[in-house]
């Protein structure tokens, strides 16, 4: 009963947060001194044409009315229409989102796969060279301007050595695998098309690596500190005294207890990676939400900006909810209340 009630309350709490978020974004994006209609209409537009456009997008009405109209559409899954390309925003988001999700998921996996062993090595060989190396790697990767690193890697691996493609998501000369999830790696696996899978993997390698740096750094530092802390607890000393092999102590006793804070951080990591996607997608011309956000912001296109904000906010909230739930799986002592 307790858990179900907790879950219901958390899910219901998403609604006011999203309403608040929509108000904040709406106010910010509509307080602009710039005139998006004029921008959309082009420099030669007559006053009449501009007026017609204003009516079409409903921006001639007062702000609260505009907001209510927007919210009314939202309940029907309508996120408005882009002023620039006249596509429904919901359609564009559906097209761009899988690309971003794929990038974020792959880089999260990379971050865990590289970060967790690095943290363990650093903790086990504390104050010796593996620790120093992992500290320097972590601090350098968190200090790295990823868009710059991306460019340098493009230059070296792509342009000079021709090892990896420079930008984009897939080879334009090869047909896409049939669309199931929109994530090319998954789609090509579903279609059992290993050739396409290889191509998609090559294209995602560089952007995912750049995106993963932050995760690698954060996981390494946080997990190292937690492993060291757990290592000093009584039950570890007890296990050691009883002659349990060090390897078993590390994996079975220490790691499981130390991972809790790292899992808690995954929610924030997800949010940071969504932020990072703005930069990564710009550098690698990755057709995802980040690139869409940049293009919309540059043209003062309200509706996509609103749509993106709400989508990102919703995702972030859901991921944090999942993180909170997963505590209980890792540590059964935690009770929800």
């Amino acid at each position, binding site marked *: 009963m307790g858990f179900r009630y907790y879950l219901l309350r958390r899910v219901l709490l998403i609604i006011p947060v999203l309403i608040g978020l929509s108000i904040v974004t709406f106010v910010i994006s509509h307080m602009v001194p710039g005139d998006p209609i004029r921008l959309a209409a082009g420099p030669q537009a007559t006053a009449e044409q501009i007026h017609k456009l204003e009516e079409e997008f409903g921006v001639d009405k007062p702000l609260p009315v505009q907001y209510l109209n927007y919210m009314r559409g939202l309940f029907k899954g309508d996120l408005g229409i882009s002023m620039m390309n006249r596509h429904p925003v919901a359609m564009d988001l559906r097209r761009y989102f899988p690309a971003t999700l794929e990038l974020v998921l792959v880089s999260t996996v990379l971050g865990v796969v590289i970060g967790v062993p690095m943290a363990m090595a650093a903790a086990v060989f504390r104050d010796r060279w593996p620790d120093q190396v992992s500290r320097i790697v972590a601090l350098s990767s968190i*200090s790295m301007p990823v868009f*710059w690193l991306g460019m340098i890697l493009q230059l070296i691996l792509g342009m000079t050595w021709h090892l990896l493609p420079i930008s984009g998501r897939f080879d334009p000369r090869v047909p896409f695998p049939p669309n199931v999830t929109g994530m090319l790696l998954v789609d090509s696996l579903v279609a059992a098309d290993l050739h396409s899978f290889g191509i998609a993997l090559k294209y995602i390698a560089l952007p995912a690596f750049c995106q993963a740096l932050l995760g690698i750094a954060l996981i390494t530092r946080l997990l190292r500190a937690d492993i*060291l802390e757990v290592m000093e607890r009584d039950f570890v000393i007890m296990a050691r005294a009883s002659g349990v092999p060090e390897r078993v102590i590390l994996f079975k006793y220490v790691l499981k207890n130390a991972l809790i804070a790292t899992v808690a951080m995954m929610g924030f990591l997800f949010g940071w990676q969504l932020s990072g996607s*703005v930069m990564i997608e710009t550098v690698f011309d990755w057709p995802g939400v980040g690139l869409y956000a940049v293009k919309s912001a*540059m043209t003062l296109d309200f509706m996509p900006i609103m749509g993106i*904000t709400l989508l990102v906010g919703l995702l972030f909230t859901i991921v944090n909810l999942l993180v909170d739930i997963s505590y209980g799986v890792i540590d059964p002592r935690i009770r929800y209340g």
Partner: protein
Amino acid sequence: MSVAVGARGWWGRWRAENQGLIEEWRRSLYRFRQSRLSVLGVAIIIFLLFVAFTGRYWVPYADDAGFTTHVEIRLQGPSRDNLFGTDEYGRDVFTRTVWATQISLIAGTVIVLVGGVIGIVLGGIAGYFGGAVNELIMRLTDIMLTMPGIFLALAITAALGPSILHAVVALSITWWPGYCRLVQAQVLSIREEDYVEAARCIGANRPRIIFNHILPNCLSAIMVKASMDFGFAVLSLAALGFIGVGAQPPVPEWGAMISKGREFLPYGWWYSTFPGIAMFLTVFGFNILGDGFRDVLDPRARR
């Protein structure tokens, strides 16, 4: 370690009165110096401050920081005349990279300061007064935290019009929620400490309790966060410059320079590379300083 009271004027008296504090500082400094990386961080930052505030007097081509053209030497590689090469207008990349240091350091300071002060004030109010005020402020903070900052900053900068000032404004007003959350949590726990209770009992008024008893005890947590945050602020500003909504030409700014150099990457690697290295050095310096600070100030991480 004893200083005679009144031996050397006010300085001696101050030292005598604050012996405990001085001792604590001395120990912190010792711990700080134990970590070679933190000392390296301090060295990097001193070097950067020197470059930032004296750079304009010794750069080889001060005019190149603005809009000048020397078409005959455009896109030349690094040489003795142009250490970091030249850009598409023949301007010296070294001069512009050095010039940009000051801009980034000042902008980073403004962002962390403004964001920090807003966050500390709001968090302090929420934590101390509690109740409905707390609910209101913290729900707003939650909403702001729901939104990865750069999307909002992007929207604000785009709306206000692209410029470095607007980028700083946008980042400053999206920077506070982290501080608000931190300070609120700190104040909530410190508020219940015995010494605050004691101050309340002897009739200290609210501002006195907040400013003399509660805030000084939040300070170490805030310092750690601020020093770790500074590099991130510099990075975010450069990110906005890179996207094109931050600094506009001819202002020399690392992100904007890297973005411009991207067009010439295949045959002018130096154009983007050197501003990137400068930026990495800056952020790295502040991050290892922050790491060292945390080791000294945060007892949990002290091991």
